[in-house]
Every structure is written in C-alpha cells, then in structure tokens.
C-alpha cells in the first residue's frame, strides 16, 4: 500500500490526475468526431457548450438536479453536468442537435410542437433527450409511469400536462 504522501505525489505527477493539464480527447457527438484539448476537470456539459458551441444542451443547475443537460451516452440518458468530458471518449454521444434525422423531426419533437409542450424552451432539449432514451425500444408506458420517470426533468414554465400528452402520443408513433 502506498502511503498517503506518496499517493499525493503520484497524483501530482500523473498527467490525467492534475485537473489543470490539458489532455487530448476525442469526443464522438452525433456521429462526428471532435478532437479537443481539454483539462481533465472539464465537464461534458461545458465541453459541449463552451468548446464545441453545441449549446442545445442546457445548463440549469450544474448539480444533476434539473435534467436540462440530459444527453445520450451509448444510448442511455446521462446528465452532462455530472459527466467528465475525458470519461466520454470512445462513447457515442447524442445531443439534441442530433435527435432529428436530418430535416425529419423525432416523433417526440413533433409531438412537443403539436401539444405546445414547451414555453420558454430552456428545459425542452433535456425533456426530449430524457424521454427519447427512456422510451426507445420499450413498450408504451402508462401516464403514471411517464409522470414518475420524467420528474427528473424540471420545467419551471410547467408545460407538464402538455409534455405528458406529447409523450403519450409519440410513444405510439
């Protein structure tokens, strides 16, 4: 076992362990590879918004409490504010910018528009990413299940009844 002092020294010498060292990182986002030089402390959310200007992913709290920063990592929904960019290397990241197929909106996006499931729109990308990951390949859920599962995505405008209606409709599509 390493003694604590040595451990500190080891961490200090380790390139990856010093949060201020810039490391080469390649992120694969919406099918495209982005080579970056990033400090290891950079959150995926900040890498997306500040380094890549993919600003569709929103910062609402930076603490994993609002759901605004939801993206897909290898098909699973993940909170980009609680994910380090360097840990996302080699994974398939999908952001709101990649949810539609070209000009064709994802059924959830279209349903959100039809049901007016948004007001200010700031929580909307997170809502869509959370719902799309959760519903993908699953049998239709009940309203109660959707209410429960989507409660990690806060909407202060409270478009909730319309969000529920949109998801109920889109999951049948």
């Amino acid at each position, binding site marked *: 076992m390493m003694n604590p002092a040595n451990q500190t020294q080891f961490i200090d010498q380790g390139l990856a362990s010093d949060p201020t060292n810039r490391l080469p990182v390649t992120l694969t986002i919406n099918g495209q590879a982005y080579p970056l030089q990033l400090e290891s402390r950079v959150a995926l959310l900040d890498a997306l*918004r500040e380094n890549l200007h993919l600003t569709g992913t929103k910062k609402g709290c930076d603490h994993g409490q609002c759901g605004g920063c939801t993206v897909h990592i290898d098909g699973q929904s993940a909170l980009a504010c609680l994910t380090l960019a360097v840990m996302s290397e080699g994974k398939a990241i999908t952001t709101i910018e990649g949810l539609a197929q070209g000009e064709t909106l994802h059924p959830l996006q279209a349903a959100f528009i039809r049901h007016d499931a948004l007001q200010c729109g700031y929580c909307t990308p997170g809502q869509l990413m959370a719902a799309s990951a959760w519903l993908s390949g699953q049998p239709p859920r009940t309203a109660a299940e959707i209410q429960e599962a989507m409660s990690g995505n806060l909407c202060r405008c409270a478009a909730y009844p319309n969000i529920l209606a949109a998801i109920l409709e889109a999951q049948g599509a």
Partner: protein
Amino acid sequence: MMDAIGQPLERADAHLKVTGAARYAAEWDLPGLAYGAVVVSGIARGTVRAIDAKAARRTPGVLAVLTHENAPRLRPLPDKLGKVLLRGEGGMTEARQPLQDAEVYYAGQPLAVVVADTHERARHAATLVGVTYDEQPPELAMTTARRQARPATFLGSPEEKLQVSIGDPAAALAAAPVRLERVYESAVTHHNPIEPLATIAHWEQRDGADFLTLYDTTRFLTGVQQIAAGAFSLPKENVHVICPFVGGAFGSKGWLFAPPLLAALAARMVGRPVKIEWRRQDMFTVAGHRSATRQTLALGATPDGQLTALQHDTQSHASLVSGFAEPCANLSRMLYQVPNLGFTHQVAHLNLPSPSTMRGPGETVGGWALECALDELATELKLDPVALRLKNYAEHNPETGKPWSSKHLRDCYARGQALIGWEKRNPVPRAMREGRYLVGYGMATTMYPAGRNAATARATISADGQALVESATHEIGNGARTIFRQISADGLGLPVARVRFELGDSALPPAPNTGGSVTTATVGPAVLAACRNALRALRQLAVRDAQSPLFGAAEEAIEARAGRLQLRAAPAQGEDYGAILRRARLPAVSAEGSAKPGPEKKQYSFYSFGAVFAQVRVDEATGVIRVARLCGVYDVGRVMNPPTARSQLLGGMTMGLGATLMEETSYDPRTGHPVVRNLADYHVPSLADTPEMSIEFLDNPDPHIGELGARGIGEIGCVGTPAAITNAVFHATGQRLRELPLTPDKLLRAATRA
C-alpha cells in the same frame, strides 16, 4: 380582419426550441471570450476589511480580479426609470451599484469577479480569493428589525397606494355582528427559472466612442440599456442589448441590474468580451425573490354574509438596500363590495437579499390570505363559499367607484362549479373520503389588473410578398413571438406563413419591459399601427401609379386582403403587394407605428377575473397533500392563441400550486445564509406533482382596453390557486392551515393539536 388572431397556431419558435437551435444569453460565441466567476460574501452584515486575490491572480489563465478597490467606477442608479420608482421606500430595486464600496448587506452579495480564459480556471481561481471582514450581527427577523417603513405607494405609482382607509374600518369592525381576525404567513419563494442569469458583455470602439453590447437574459431590454448607459456615462445609443430568448423569468430578470453591470465591468477591465453565468445557488441571492409575509385579515359581516368591513395589514421584508414592498392588498382593495376598507403595508429591512416582483406580486400571497379568510367566514356563517362571494360581488370598483371595463366573474364561478362537480361536495368538512384519503373541494376568486403601456413597432413588406414586423419586446415563454406574428398577419392582410415577427433586441423600435401581464395589450396595438402605416405607404404607391389597377382610387376605398390591395367594392380589381413594389422598383416598404393608452383608464377599472376550484386528497397518516384536480375559468378578454394562452395558465396555476405545497427558502437565523439554495432542496413542482388540470376562457373581448380586446394572462393563473388548494385542504381535513407552504409537518402538527 381577424383571420389569424384567436387561431390555435403552433408556437412560432417551437421548431428552434425542440432542436436546440434557440440561442439564450450564455450561448453567443464571441471571439476572445473570457469567463467571469463571482466571489460572494460569506457574511450577512459588515464591511470587507481586505480581499486577498494574490493566489487567484497567480493562477494560469487568470486575466483579472475585480474588487471594490479596482473596479471601474459606476454612476449611481437613477431614482426613477420612466415612472417606476427604483430607489427608496416602496421602490423597485436594489439601490446600489456592484463593486463600488466595501459594505456587506446580505450573504451571497457579489464581492469580486475573477476573469480567466476558461470557465474552469475562473471558477477555480474564485475559490482562492480570501476575504476578511469586520462582521456585525445581522438583522434577520421581521418582528425585531429596527428599520421598519411604511411606504406610501408601490413603485411610486399614485394609483397603487399602500396605506389606505376608506370609511371607518375600525369602527365598522367593532360594530360588526360577525367578526373574524386571522393571521396568515407565507414563506420566501424564488422564481428559479431553469435558465440561470447570464450576461456576455462586449466593449468596442465605434467611431472613436465606447460602445457596449450586452447579451443578457432580461425581460427589460430598454431598462438594461438605460441603466448600463447611465452607469457608464454613455449615450443610450451606445449600449446595445440583445436577448431573443429568455429561459423563463416569472418576475426575475427584470429589475435587478447588478448582473449585467458586473459583466460589463469585467469586460471593461480585461478588454475582452466576458461572460458571467450565475450558479444556481446565486439565483437565491442576486435574482430577487418574493418576500415572506405576515398578513392580518380582519373581516366584519352581517349574519347573512354581507361584508361591512375589511382590514388587511401586511408585513413583508426587503434588504437594507431595497425598499420593495409586497403589495398584498391588491385583491382586498377591489374584489368585494365593502363600505369600510383599510389596508397597510409595513416593510422590515433585513440583512437578506433584495426582493423583487414574483408572478402575481402582492396578488399571489395577498389574494391567498383574503380568499382563505373569506372561506373561513363562509364556514363560520355556514354559507357556501361561492354564495358568500356572490353576496359581496362588486358591481364596480369599491375603492375608486369606477365601473369595470368588463367583468363576467359570475360566469367564471358557475362554469368552475360545473367543471369540478361542486354539487357533489358535501359541505361538512372531513366528510368525504376515498379509501385512505380524505378528499376536499375548495375554491377561490382570482384577478389580475389589466394594464396597458406605450410601445412602438415597425412593419416591413417586401417585394417577395413576405413581411417582417419588429418590436423590442421579449419572448420569455409567453408566446410573444407567436401571437404578435398572428396580430401582424391580420394587420397586414397576409397569411401567417408569410409573416415573421422579431423581438429581443434594443435596436428595434422600443417596447416596455415584459411584466405585469400587459404585453399583449401594450405591444399588440403598436404592431397593428405599424402594419397600418406600412399598408398606407403601399396604398399611396398604388394610387399614384398609372399602371396600377388601383390608380386614382380613393385610399379609403381600398382594402388589404390575403396579400392584395383591392377595391372594397370590387375585390377583383387590385393587385398583390409585391407587384406594387416591383413596379416602383422598391425592395420593400417599411413603417413604424406606436400606440399608447388613451383616457380609458380614467373612466374604467381594468381587471381580469377568474375562479379556481381545487380537489385535494390528503393522507392523514403522513400529512401529504396531493392536488387531484385544478379547474380554472378565466375572464381575460379576447384570447390571441388558445394553446399558448392555456400553457401560460397551466404554468401560472402550477407555480401557485408550488407556492402552496412545497416552495420555501429558509435562511439560517444566525448567519443569514440561505439554507435552501439548490433545486433538490427548493422543490419546484415536477410532472409527478401535476394534477389533472382544466382551463377555460370565457373569451369576452374587453370593449375598452384597445381594439384587440385582450387583457393579460401571465399572472392570473398563479393568483387564486393557493387559496383554492388551502381551502380544499380545510374541507378535506377540518384543519385550517395559515402558513405557506402547507408541508406535511404542519398538517401533522395541526392534527395532533386538534
């Protein structure tokens, strides 16, 4: 012509919002952008003795550390902005400029800004700044605060007096056969829009002069512009504020100007554009809040329920550098026909952050107290709560004596009763059950003042038959971009698909702040005026053009329909807008228009009305209250777009539900730090908290508020809902809870006492 107005059209910016393409304040990509991180006060009262920024300045990437010692000087805030009193007792905002002195008035007050080349470096360096203080014991309790004030008016408005006595309320109360006096208390609540405050400030030299561009999340472009211009001694034209999308405001992002000024100070210091994105915890200190209140309601009545006296006394709190008063008597002053009416407002100055307007300022918690007191009176007199309200129905404004511009509140009550199934309600409290749950029904009246201000707009018709209409109003989720596009389409005689409406830029024709539920009634008429003026210019081209089928026609004989100017009497004789412009070799015609309120306010009293009904289920074993259903019926004048209007009401009612059941910011009673300062501890309603909601509009156009007939809808949903739920909880349990929010502990405590 009203082809588009009133239609259920999709939100004009919905596609941008569902694809992530809508650009909010923090999302502009400027070359050389640097990042500001704010160091905030660790004490609630005292003076900064020293700020040690050496370690921060040594950190790689750090460009500057701004403190009160080295920050550029700002001129003080003006006393007023337009008619709105900013400073002093009853004023709107925090009367001090950031980083200009060493005084600390509340915990979380900005004390320094660290600017670095990356977000991470700025944040980290901010943690290295050491601050020492000369600390004094903070004043944190309303009851013991030494500085108390009784402001004469709300925001300096002569129409919004805060200390009023009509008739003789004291004598009438003493003489009343039935008397009820109750104290209601409400907690501090925070807006918590999901988009935090953010500003990017960018200084340039233009024609040898300083020019400041602010990308700021604000619902008051011209306010930020004027305040920044004043602070930096610039002409107003040299400040440009850009904000096409606001990620929710709810009363914040309007009148507290320190955040954009801090970014401007930082950018000035480092000579690069600087972005400051505030953390969620800062939203509990610099973004404003609704003050806690302690309200005493005294009602005098005859045994059959006629009100004879109403006295409503409010205690709220402001900071040491703000005079904001929560105007809680806004409903009491006008809702019921009562001959002896009094209200007072007292503000305690505490070492807590500066409050601000929050959705239904005064109305939401003041109306809660009044409408709960009415319910208590109904119980006391064994009257149906709706019947008691009808008995005291005000046929005209009781304070001013003016007639209402339009009021159909009786219809709201009746329709609301039908929607919720009021006849199924057993009037006896604690008499209804569903399995383990106690079930209750409650109701409340809601209202919101319908104001109107002056605004301007510009309409441009292009030779390709498309049109652009613009005004410096704001899209805060209210649907402004959508409904003004509809209004523009009708104003121009064009299909909606050929009209674009732009907003969110101070360089556009000026519009006031978006607040007070006045935007449709304010900007709508200006949009129509601009459209009319653009069409007039087009008509003048046509009638003077020998090649036009309209050559020589009298202008009044021409109408605009579906993109054509044509003779009213012979519609086939005419031509489309593009043809007129192309022949004149003009790419476009453009005209401005403005509108302002007329004398109508002198003649009528303008209010929207509504009735809210709630059904709750209470689990007595745990004290948990769940709202099962909310029904709101609203008399708001003409509705521009039913889906977006409904959305605003859903949002308002849900925010009212949050204030009733869960929202509360508490401060450490010794240190003054917010104990609740994140979205896990501050509970805003989630999808799982959302009841079944039905919303209806009566859709009676207001004949006096202007040609659109539209009053406001942004706040009325938040008002009324708290009392409807609280009254339903009483009906379910037989417990009167008089302290918001109605958390389980309070219900359990009340049940134990009973």
